[in-house]
């Protein structure tokens, strides 16, 4: 049969309309739409970040310093290459003011930004009431101005014109900060923003030697400046002086990485939706071809070869696939493009919503490959329909298995490999994609096996003693055990959807339990930072005097940037160390010194130095990070602290449990190495909840420069972030579940005729509608519960992998969410089944039986 003839036949066959393909189209469109939508939003955000790169970064390029400001020679070096330079300082502090609500002195943790006249080089600061930033910050009546995020104004209870103290300086609140152009690049802050002039901070005690702050020089460069050459030049200096470079090509690398990771994860969940849809596609094609058995038999009687008939139906499935993919793309691209701009303003990151082709091509490739992959198997069976089918009882089920040609198997493998290759290429995270696809394939295979096992057991049970005298139960068991019961399709679609949900539920529970259950038992109430050397004794006295304070620990604290590992520059070392340890080389790290090992520290290798050690600098390094960086005892680590490089030899490795929230340092040096270096102290205070307010009043009043970070607040901020990620994941899982539900509904709808017939016979035999309904419900519930149980196993296994290997935390099984998943599965299946139960129950038996005559 020629392709043209096959095409003509295919078109004639489709005159009957698309009614039989609603599930096919819906499954495909939903899967493609979810992949296309996630891709479109990701591209919109990437475009937004790229388009506003300068404003986000606050310049064409930025040079960051830790703990110090650039000196004159460094400023001169920067001014040489830039048209304009703006210097920013950034640090955490406490805003202290008299609340108009409580009438008392209130303190709020804040992230302070000190700016100069050149700020912002790009973009605009939005203030409420509207005014230029310079006007808001200018000194008036001896008091400099300050602008503050509305959240902090509300929290403390302030009005414009009120006095706010930072350190030992008083400022006047002039406006609420409505828009900060470079907010995205600032990253994760624990407190709302305050902007002041850096000059006004002189004498506040907040920018003294040893206090913890970051400074950066933002550069406005000439049009067409060679960013790579400039970067290379500064990075060479950076290794010596502790500078770090960023430029507008990637103004917020952290945000971009985060968006990419989340998007990759959501696209993979979208693929799971497509896989679930694939099950529906397979069932829909199988049902369609079963209905076409007579037509196929007639075509064969008329002399059409098996290959030609395969082509006719392949062409039909191809056309439907094109339609389904087009619908999915329309939905997936159209929704973000239309709705996105309405929400763009409220997004925390800039996004340019438009029609982007790349994510649509990606979604289309996934859609076409998935549809053909899942349709191929039932399609291959059309060759096996014999002309004799015309003379067989139409009610007899079509043969379940057909012989597969070598070509079918090759095509199946090629489509599968194509799908895997597409996922590995498009995802940008091949390992994650490989694990994910392996998991989906494993879950599908297990669900298939379990559904077969369930069918087998149900068929045996139907003939056993248990259902004797309970025909409704036997009918349910026999239906599950029968070939036409749709058990496999329902179990696969529902099971995969529930697996994704179960995995997310278990991961979410474990992450929450790490934060909310494990930490508070051991964690302190407050961290205090920036305690000056000469304040330490008084601070301890003050804090210990507060009733309810249980335990105070302090340690000297400095920040330093690792510039070299055993003589290899950090920039080069970054390429060779294990990925898990790269964060140590990005930015500055906490450094301390001690004569004795910290309490409870476990030395895993090497020895601690004698208390009176006075030799060359030695360092105690975190065991895990040391291993990831490839460090061994005797290697050297060069750290830039306050612009000076210090090279220490690794004397020992310590095991650190970062989750303890105690004072932990990646590096602890011997006291001699830090002699004379200006530094501050960090303190942790364990206190009863009732003592927290008194503690903050006492310490805050006596030491205005000291910043208090409430651990519970910090945990809540982190928890809120995790909740957002979990919410995004749940949206993704929702797409999988909706697709799964469509498949379920499709299966239930497809089985409606069979159930109407069953109900009619049972009515003839005297069964009441309640009894028949009970049988239907039992059948749906059993299949749903079985799918739920497999989902728990696979979901928990996936979550275990994430928690143990990615989060490096012990895994705990969440029984509550597991029970909810099984119950949810049973209910979803029940609902889908009962949606279509009314018609069989309501149908007149005579009509149903006549239809079968």
């Amino acid at each position, binding site marked *: 049969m020629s392709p043209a003839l096959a095409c003509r036949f295919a078109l004639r066959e489709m005159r009957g309309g698309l009614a039989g393909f609603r599930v096919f189209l819906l499954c495909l469109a939903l899967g493609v739409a979810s992949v296309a939508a996630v891709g479109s939003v990701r591209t919109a955000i990437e475009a937004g970040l790229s388009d506003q790169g300068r404003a986000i970064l606050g310049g064409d390029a930025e040079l960051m310093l830790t703990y110090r400001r650039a000196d004159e020679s460094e400023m001169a070096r920067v001014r040489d290459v830039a048209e304009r330079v703006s210097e920013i300082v950034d640090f955490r502090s406490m805003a202290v003011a008299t609340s108009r609500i409580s009438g008392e002195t209130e303190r709020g943790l804040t992230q302070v930004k000190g700016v100069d006249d050149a700020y912002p080089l790009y973009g605009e600061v939005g203030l409420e009431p509207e005014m230029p930033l310079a006007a808001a910050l200018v000194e008036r009546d001896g008091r400099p101005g300050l602008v503050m995020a509305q959240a902090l104004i509300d929290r403390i209870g302030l009005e414009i014109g009120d006095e706010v103290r930072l350190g030992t300086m008083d400022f006047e609140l002039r406006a609420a900060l409505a828009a900060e152009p470079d907010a995205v690049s600032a990253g994760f802050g624990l407190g709302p923003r305050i902007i002041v002039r850096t000059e006004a901070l002189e004498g506040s005690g907040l920018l003294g030697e040893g206090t913890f702050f970051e400074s950066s020089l933002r550069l406005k460069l000439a049009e067409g400046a060679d960013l790579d050459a400039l970067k290379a030049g500064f990075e060479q200096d950076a290794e010596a002086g502790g500078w770090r470079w960023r430029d507008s090509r990637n103004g917020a690398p952290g945000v971009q990485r985060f968006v990419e990771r989340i998007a990759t994860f959501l696209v993979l969940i979208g693929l799971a939706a497509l896989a679930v849809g694939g099950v529906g596609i397979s069932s829909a094609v199988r049902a369609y071809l079963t209905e076409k058995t007579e037509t196929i038999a007639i075509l064969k009687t008329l002399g059409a070869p098996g290959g030609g008939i395969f082509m006719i139906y392949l062409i039909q499935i191809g056309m439907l696939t094109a339609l389904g993919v087009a619908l999915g793309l329309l939905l997936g691209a159209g929704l973000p493009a239309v709705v996105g701009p309405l929400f763009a303003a409220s997004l925390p990151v800039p996004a340019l919503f438009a029609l982007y082709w790349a994510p649509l091509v990606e979604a289309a490739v996934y859609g076409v490959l998935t549809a053909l992959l899942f349709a191929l198997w039932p399609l291959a069976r059309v060759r096996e329909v014999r002309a004799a089918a015309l003379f067989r*009882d139409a009610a007899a*089920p079509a043969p379940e298995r057909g012989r597969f040609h070598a070509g079918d198997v090759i095509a199946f493998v090629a489509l599968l490999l194509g799908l895997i290759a597409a996922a590995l290429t498009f995802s940008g995270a091949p390992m994650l994609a490989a694990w994910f696809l392996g998991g989906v394939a494993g879950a599908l295979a297990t669900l298939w096996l379990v559904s077969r096992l369930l069918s087998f057991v149900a068929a045996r049970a139907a003939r056993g003693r248990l259902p004797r005298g309970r025909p409704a139960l*036997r*009918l349910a068991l026999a239906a599950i055990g029968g070939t036409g019961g749709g058990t496999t399709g329902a179990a696969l679609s529902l099971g995969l959807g529930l697996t994704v949900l179960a995995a997310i539920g278990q991961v979410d529970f474990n992450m929450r339990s790490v934060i909310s259950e494990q930490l508070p038992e051991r964690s302190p109430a407050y961290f205090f930072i920036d305690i000056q050397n000469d304040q330490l004794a008084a601070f301890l006295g003050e804090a210990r005097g507060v009733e309810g304070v249980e335990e105070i620990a302090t340690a000297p604290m400095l920040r330093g940037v690792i510039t070299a590992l055993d003589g290899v520059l950090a920039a080069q070392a970054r390429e060779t160390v294990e990925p898990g340890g790269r964060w140590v080389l990005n930015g500055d790290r906490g450094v301390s010194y001690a004569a004795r090992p910290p309490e409870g520290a476990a030395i895993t290798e090497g020895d601690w130095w004698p208390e009176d050690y006075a030799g060359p600098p030695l360092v105690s390094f975190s065991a895990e990070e040391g291993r990831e960086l490839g460090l061994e005892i005797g290697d050297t680590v060069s750290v830039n602290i306050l612009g000076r490089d210090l090279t220490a030899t690794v004397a020992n490795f310590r095991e650190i449990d970062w989750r303890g929230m105690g004072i932990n340092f990646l590096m602890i040096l011997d006291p001699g190495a830090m002699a004379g270096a200006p530094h501050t102290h960090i303190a942790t205070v364990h206190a009863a909840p009732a003592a927290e307010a008194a503690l903050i009043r006492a310490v805050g009043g006596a030491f205005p420069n000291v910043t208090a970070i409430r651990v519970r607040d910090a945990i809540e901020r982190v928890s809120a972030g995790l909740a957002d990620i979990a919410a995004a994941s749940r949206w993704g899982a929702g797409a999988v579940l909706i697709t799964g539900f469509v498949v379920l509904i499709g299966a239930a709808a497809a089985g409606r005729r069979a159930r109407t*017939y069953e109900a*009619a016979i049972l009515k003839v*035999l005297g069964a009441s509608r309640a*009894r028949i309904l009970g049988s239907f419900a039992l059948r749906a519930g059993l299949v749903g519960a079985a799918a739920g149980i497999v989902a728990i196993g696979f979901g928990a296994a996936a979550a275990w992998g994430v928690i143990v290997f990615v989060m490096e935390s012990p895994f705990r099984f969440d029984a509550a969410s597991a029970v909810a998943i099984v119950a949810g599965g049973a209910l979803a299946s029940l609902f889908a089944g009962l949606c279509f139960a009314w018609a069989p129950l309501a149908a007149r038996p005579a009509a149903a*039986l006549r239809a*079968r005559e």
Partner: protein
Amino acid sequence: MSVFSLKDVHLSLAAKAGRVDILRGVALEVESGQSVGIVGPSGSGKSSLLMIMAGLERATSGQVGALGHDLSAMGEDALARFRRDNMGVVFQSFHLIPTMTALENVAAPLELAGAKDAFARAVRELTAMGLKGREDHYPAQLSGGEQQRVALARASAPRPKILLADEPTGNLDSATGAVIVEALFGLQKRHGATLILVTHAPELAAMCDRVIRIEDGRAKETPEAARDAA
């Protein structure tokens, strides 16, 4: 005692071209233990009348009495219970439950009636129908004649007062049909049931005590009808 009492029964069904009047005032009385053959041309409404008598179809108007109950006033579940306790129905297309074995199909109405010995009785019934050894076969694994014998066993197993058969030999060859007919009348005689038999076959109708001819939606019972049938 009157088993069936039909008065002015009408049936109209919706069709694509509009409503079709199938029955136009059928009146019929059937006494206990009688066998009644219903004959008539194709589309005359024979099967529809049987369905109404079985409570599987609701008459558009008129009264349908069975064993002193007004079927037209009963709900779906009440009708199902009534059939369970009083009726056995045999169809031309057998209508066995495809996912159940022969034995389970026969046991189903007994189980629905709460019989403790449903399976033992079902085995006996199948054996009596010459189907020993076929108990565990599914309908698809049985021939047409075997399927109809299973259907007959299922209909008779609860010992119903009324047996309704709709073209029971219509899908079978003459030899197999003869076996079924013999079994059907044998059952009726043995258990004293009332038999209502819809058939195209004149010789089959002639085996009944009475013959009703359905024509133009009305029932005619005359000696001519019986003679015509013969």
